[in-house]
């Protein structure tokens, strides 16, 4: 049963999974409470555009995805705050716009191929040592940034006016959150692929919500659900030859359904 851990590629997969599983809810919880969850999906599509550029230019698509995603987050945040456009309109604009550009670029090259399929739906088993270094470095940035700005992020999420009164640098924190979300999206591509990233950042958080706890406890529980889903998902996908990204997200969904039942049961008592 433990032979899975003997393979180096699976060790790398579990390490990458552990890091992504930790950071996804860390960023996701702030997106969810600010009703900004769609940012993850939008940035994922912007990443796909980055991947397409990488494929066309023959540069590591993982790196071009990171650059595209971060630049996209800066543009989105700027349009949202400076031009006074509605958040959902801006997200919709970037989601479809980036996808359109990605599809055109991909059609210029060979069209759809196995490599692209891995980016769309994830294939954590092909994580390279180089990928691990990038994921590790970005995970460290994410964890320390969230811990350092935790109080500001919390207050800004709950009451943006009081955040201004208390001299929280609102623009800077908003921009930072968008960039952190972009980094998170970039490192999640390997695990679940562009199309399933939103699930990784949102589902563990809303699952945890069902247990009616304070903010920090909700976050910790979300990380636990996230890690269990990734580890169990990897394990099951290996032994039953399933797509890893889809299996991970389906386990997240399963936990969510169970949490709904738990919530209902508790209410009846």
């Amino acid at each position, binding site marked *: 049963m433990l032979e899975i851990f003997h393979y180096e590629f699976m060790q790398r997969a579990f390490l990458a999974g552990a890091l992504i599983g930790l950071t996804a809810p860390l960023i996701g919880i702030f997106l969810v409470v600010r009703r900004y969850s769609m940012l993850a999906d939008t940035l994922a599509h912007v990443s796909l555009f980055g991947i397409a550029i990488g494929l066309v230019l023959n540069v590591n698509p993982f790196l071009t995805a990171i650059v595209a995603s971060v630049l996209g987050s800066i543009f989105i945040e700027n349009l949202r705050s400076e031009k006074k456009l509605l958040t959902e309109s801006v997200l919709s604009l970037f989601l479809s716009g980036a996808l359109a550009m990605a599809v055109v670029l991909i059609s210029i090259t060979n069209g759809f191929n196995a490599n692209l399929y891995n980016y769309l739906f994830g294939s954590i088993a092909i994580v390279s040592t180089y990928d691990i270094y990038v994921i590790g470095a970005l995970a460290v940035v994410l964890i320390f940034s969230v811990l350092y700005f935790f109080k500001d992020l919390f207050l800004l*999420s709950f*009451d943006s006016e009081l955040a201004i009164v208390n001299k929280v640098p609102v623009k800077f924190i908003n921009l930072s959150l968008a960039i952190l979300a972009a980094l998170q999206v970039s490192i999640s591509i390997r695990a679940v692929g562009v199309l399933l990233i939103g699930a990784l950042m949102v589902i563990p958080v809303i699952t945890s919500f069902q247990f009616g706890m304070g903010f920090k406890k909700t976050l910790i529980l979300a990380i636990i659900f996230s890690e269990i889903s990734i580890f169990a998902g990897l394990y099951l996908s290996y032994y039953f030859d399933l797509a890893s990204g889809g299996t991970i997200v389906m386990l997240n969904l399963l936990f969510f359904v169970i949490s709904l039942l738990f919530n209902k049961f508790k209410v009846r008592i």
Partner: protein
Amino acid sequence: MHLKQEKLLECKNVSFSYGNEKILDAVSFELKAGQYVGLIGPNGGGKSTLVRILLGILKAKKGSIEKSDDMNIGYVPQRISSMMSFFPATVFEIVKSGLPRNNVSNISSIESMKLVGITDLKSKLIGELSGGQLQKVFIARALVSDPKILILDEPAVGIDPHASAKFYSILKKLNKEKNITIVLVSHDLDVVNNEVDTVFCLNKTLVCRGHKMDLMNEKNLKKLYGDTFKLVNHNHA
């Protein structure tokens, strides 16, 4: 007594407009330690805008707000939004979030919860609170920054009379015992008449200001709200 009259804040000729629409026109006043001010005026008279300027949320187009940098202003908003019910946070977490950014305050979260009598709610989720309890949480959150001035914008809207009476008694206690200056924005003239000492009447300009005994009469209020205004006295036993 001398200390009680210490000037905390000066609003100097403050004007504000949205495009061509003038909202505030050359508003000037001082806030002194220990005052209990009721800010009244018709809808669109600029009350909320003035509050937002005092708090630093909006910038005055003309004029200035002068206060010392280390003096904190506490803010209790109107009962906010439906998102409260799903936000996963305990009362303690919300109160603590009011601490200044440098985390330096003379009063702890627990002490400020004690002051408003909500220590028993410490671990409750904010989504489970009644309107009255929620407003007490917001006062505690404001107090944790050790403010000299507390500004409340229509704080008791939608709260039942019993809870709102308790709420106002807490404000009175903070004003009398802690010498905190309170600025209460309210449409409820009855409450203003019962609670505050000083009244500021705002309708784009500061129409009048002074002790409530001199201002809360039909003649003056008609000047502020228009000729159709009629003062009805309620009997508060």
